[in-house]
């Protein structure tokens, strides 16, 4: 049976016909194309690359862009895509987040006409895969401290340094790399580095226990020469990468709802059919009901939060701290739901015959990347008190 959705409050009414059509299309795609293979992919640690052309045919990449033959969806429809994809798997959703919000968005927003003409159509069609290199081995929550530098030399930039934990790193045809221009005190700039450039390598992180159907790699630059024209001309400073992250995090707030929907739906089904003690379904026990009540309540609150965010984003009124609230809250909800679902499933909660453990492991990555839960707490703390408790990078 196709996924019926989770909609306790009748929120469906708050979406337009085309927003629902977008959601239902991706929902069907996930049911038909992702769910049948994803458990094996995760078990084998394999990214299902064969899905890239199919996702491209649906226009899942760069879907909010209205040029270059892309669909120009609003932000609520984009959010619903992320929700449905992550209902399938956080790794697949990560792929689309990176391709759309972290690669196409900066090239489209800060790139030159030539850069846009070269990369946007190919990325949109899935002919090229992109990645986004900000985090370094020694700089995660504090990207401003990065050590990667790009120095001008004749008609080239010369890049030195290393990035780590980069989604799609080893399979990317083009990397958006954030580095300091000129030296350690220079401004952060974005550079486009293409696969095959001498001095650029991308070894994969091994033994990942989470997001196993997604590729995560290091990017290493050793006197890597790229043409001068490969810098993104439209932005300088940490605002560049941070504005991309705001886009991606907004989508993640929706994606997390999808993950929670998947684990809740599975737990509810299981609780109604699994019988223990006097042949009664475990759903009849109060402790199990308490968990289900918690899940549906938190999912519903998360849905309302992201929907409000989406409408505000479409109206141009969204602030980064709004996104921090939603990323922090909704990923936490997904994490709690995954754990409760895993408890409700008993032994079946630890096997790949059910999606729960995979989601539970996946959400640990989502909890950490795109600003950890605690860092978003500090962003919110600063937003309401006006006092930065740490030294936050400014967008």
């Amino acid at each position, binding site marked *: 049976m*196709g996924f019926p959705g989770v909609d306790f409050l009748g929120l469906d009414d708050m979406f337009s016909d*085309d927003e629902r059509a*977008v959601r239902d*299309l991706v929902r069907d795609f996930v049911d038909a194309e992702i769910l049948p293979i994803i458990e094996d992919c995760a078990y084998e640690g394999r990214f299902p690359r064969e899905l890239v052309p199919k996702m491209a*045919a649906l226009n899942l990449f760069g879907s909010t862009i209205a040029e270059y033959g892309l669909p120009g969806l609003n932000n609520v429809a984009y959010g619903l895509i992320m929700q449905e994809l992550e209902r399938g798997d956080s790794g697949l959703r990560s792929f689309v987040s990176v391709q759309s919000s972290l690669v196409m968005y900066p090239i489209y927003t800060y790139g030159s006409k030539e850069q846009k003409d070269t990369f946007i159509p190919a990325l949109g069609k899935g002919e090229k895969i992109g990645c986004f290199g900000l985090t370094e081995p020694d700089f995660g929550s504090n990207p401003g401290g990065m050590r990667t530098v790009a120095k001008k030399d004749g008609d080239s930039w010369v890049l030195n340094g290393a990035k780590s934990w980069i989604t799609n790193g080893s399979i990317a045809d083009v990397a958006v790399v954030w580095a300091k221009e000129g030296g350690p005190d220079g401004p952060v700039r974005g550079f486009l580095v293409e696969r095959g450039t001498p001095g650029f390598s991308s070894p994969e992180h091994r033994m990942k226990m989470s997001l196993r159907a997604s590729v995560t790699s290091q990017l290493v630059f050793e006197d890597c020469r790229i043409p001068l024209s490969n810098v993104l001309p439209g932005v300088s400073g940490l605002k560049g990468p941070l504005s991309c992250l705001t886009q991606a995090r907004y989508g993640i707030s929706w994606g997390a709802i999808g993950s929670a929907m998947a684990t809740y739906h599975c737990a509810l089904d299981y609780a109604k059919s699994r019988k223990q003690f006097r042949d009664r379904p475990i759903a009849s026990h109060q402790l199990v009901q308490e968990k289900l009540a918690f899940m549906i309540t938190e999912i519903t609150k998360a849905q309302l939060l992201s929907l409000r965010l989406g409408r505000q984003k479409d109206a141009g009124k969204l602030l980064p701290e709004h996104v921090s609230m939603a990323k922090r809250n909704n990923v936490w909800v997904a994490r709690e739901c995954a754990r409760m679902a895993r408890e409700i499933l008993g032994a079946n909660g630890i096997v790949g015959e059910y999606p729960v453990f995979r989601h539970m492991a996946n959400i640990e990555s989502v909890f950490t990347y795109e600003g950890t839960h605690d860092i978003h707490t500090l962003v919110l703390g600063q937003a309401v008190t006006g006092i930065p408790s740490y030294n936050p990078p400014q967008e």
Partner: protein
Amino acid sequence: MNHVVCIAYVPDTETKIKIGSDGKSIDEADVKWIVSPYDEFALEEAIKAKEAKGGTVTVVTYGPARADVGLRECLARGADEAIRIASEGIADVDSLGVAQMLAGAIKTLKYDVVWLGNKGVGTDAQVMVPMVAEFLDLPHVNLVTKIEWKAGAVTAWREIEGAKEVVECPLPAVIGAQKGLNEPRYASLKGIMAAKKKQIAVKKPAEVGVDAAAMSGDKSPVRWTKLELPPARQAVKLVPADDPAKAAEELLRLLRDEAKVL
């Protein structure tokens, strides 16, 4: 070449059907509606032909407002226009009545090929293709699994018992799509956005020349008098396989004497 594709918006094949309180209709409360899968084959083939040879694709349905969602999905996949003959306020109509409605709407269009699924997955009556053809006074080929276009004609492959039949048919004609004809595409997000700008023409039966009162409710030649669900499935019987020879013997006995399928 211009194509008209008749679309039925039916309960999802995986919906658990519940019978309504009147005992002769479906309880529609929790039903998820879909474009009938056989109609999807028909639509896909029409869109492929349009892409290869030009022309237009128009989708037509008879049904209530919820069917607009199905028509929009067809527009998102590449249909150009959509017509819904509105069933609001009209009592139940049987297949013959629906065929007249569809034929009435099709007659208002310019077309070379009329497509239908060979059956709807709703009531499975399997009579629409010949009925629509009859009302349009056109030849028809049903259960088609492959198509080749020629000037003014079509060659169609049909599945028959143990063989394939190849028939040639002049156009215009009515074609009934069978599973295997193609692999229907997904809509695309671009298609959904483009469909948003297209209008669905909603028409009353009278506007397509059909007197609904004369064929609906008590006037309908075929009426549903009762709906029954199949008996609940029996518990599974497991044959222990400690001794394979004995197990096979027991299995045979069960199939012959209890299930009576041998």
